[in-house]
């Protein structure tokens, strides 16, 4: 479902929710968090060959405070868990997470004492990308899936609940 609006002379009628979702889904600025070989595929997806910026992932943000999508590409060791959690906590709402690759999804081949068996044990994940590593097309497909998810979001519901309480 695309963006729907009624336009007349000097006015536009639409749903504010649709407008917000339209803006959010078309500017998912990624925070690249590459910890293994998946990071290389992520770099390829971001670079000019695949050009993820076409879908609004315009600027890889190296500060979590200005990022919308955490792309966790690679193995997370248990020693690394507090770092990942802190990065996620520092991101401003609204925020989403893509778990890229077998390691981020489930620990992958590293079924050992030192490896986290999937980042969803620590932070919530929106889209999982299987593969070892997934091709850049896989990551771009995940981003498109995430955009679909964002479009179905209801960003105004919390504020509406607050308003009802106040009135």
């Amino acid at each position, binding site marked *: 479902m695309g963006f729907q609006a009624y336009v007349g002379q000097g006015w536009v009628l639409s749903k504010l929710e649709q407008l917000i979702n339209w803006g959010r889904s078309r500017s998912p600025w990624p925070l690249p968090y590459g910890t293994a070989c998946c990071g290389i595929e992520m770099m390829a997806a971001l670079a000019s060959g695949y050009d993820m910026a076409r879908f609004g992932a315009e600027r890889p943000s190296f500060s979590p405070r200005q990022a919308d999508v955490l792309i966790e590409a690679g193995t997370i060791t*248990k*020693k690394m*868990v*507090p770092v990942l*959690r*802190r990065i996620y*906590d520092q991101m401003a709402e609204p925020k989403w997470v893509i778990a890229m690759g077998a390691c981020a999804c489930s620990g992958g081949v590293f*079924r*050992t*004492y*030192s490896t986290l068996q999937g980042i969803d044990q620590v932070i919530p994940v929106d889209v999982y990308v299987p593969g070892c590593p997934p091709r850049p097309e896989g990551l771009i497909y995940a981003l498109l899936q995430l955009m679909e998810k964002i479009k179905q979001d209801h960003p105004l519901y919390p504020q509406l609940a607050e308003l009802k309480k106040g009135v």
Partner: protein
Amino acid sequence: MDFQERVKACVGDDLVSMTEFRGDVSVTVPRTRIVQVLTRLKEAEGLKFDFLSDLFGVDNSALGKGKKKGKKEDEEAPAAPKPPRYEVVYLLLSIEYNHRLMVKVQVEEGQMEVPTVTSIWKAANWPEREVFDMFGIRFKGHPNMKRLLMWDGFPAHPLRKDYPLEGEGEERRLVYGDA
């Protein structure tokens, strides 16, 4: 004098045993004498082991378990005397002569301390920390005897053979407001 004789002469009375396997010579020396032996091997004329290429630990407690199939019991060689549980192995290289030597010390349970060789090679710093991290063998006199790979507070030594591969459920969590 060939290589093995030169090594034997250099190690002298500290030699516990000496073996050769397909051209690789290894000597075992007493745990407490390792610094003196390695210093001599580094400085001896004709040997000059000036480069420590690796330092690691071994857990022998699973030795002999998991025998190969198709081999009958009576065909096997008589069981060798069981070595001490742990070993620390030093791999030496002489850059001048391009020859190598393996030096081992045996570490019994209950005597888990080996003198550090960081005074001879600075490069021994991190490998010794790794051995401490993975096996729990401490190095006496080491400048920074902390874990290298696992986080501080990790309760086990994971390369010991009695430690399960998938761990014992150790987790590290982010705690805010903690010193």
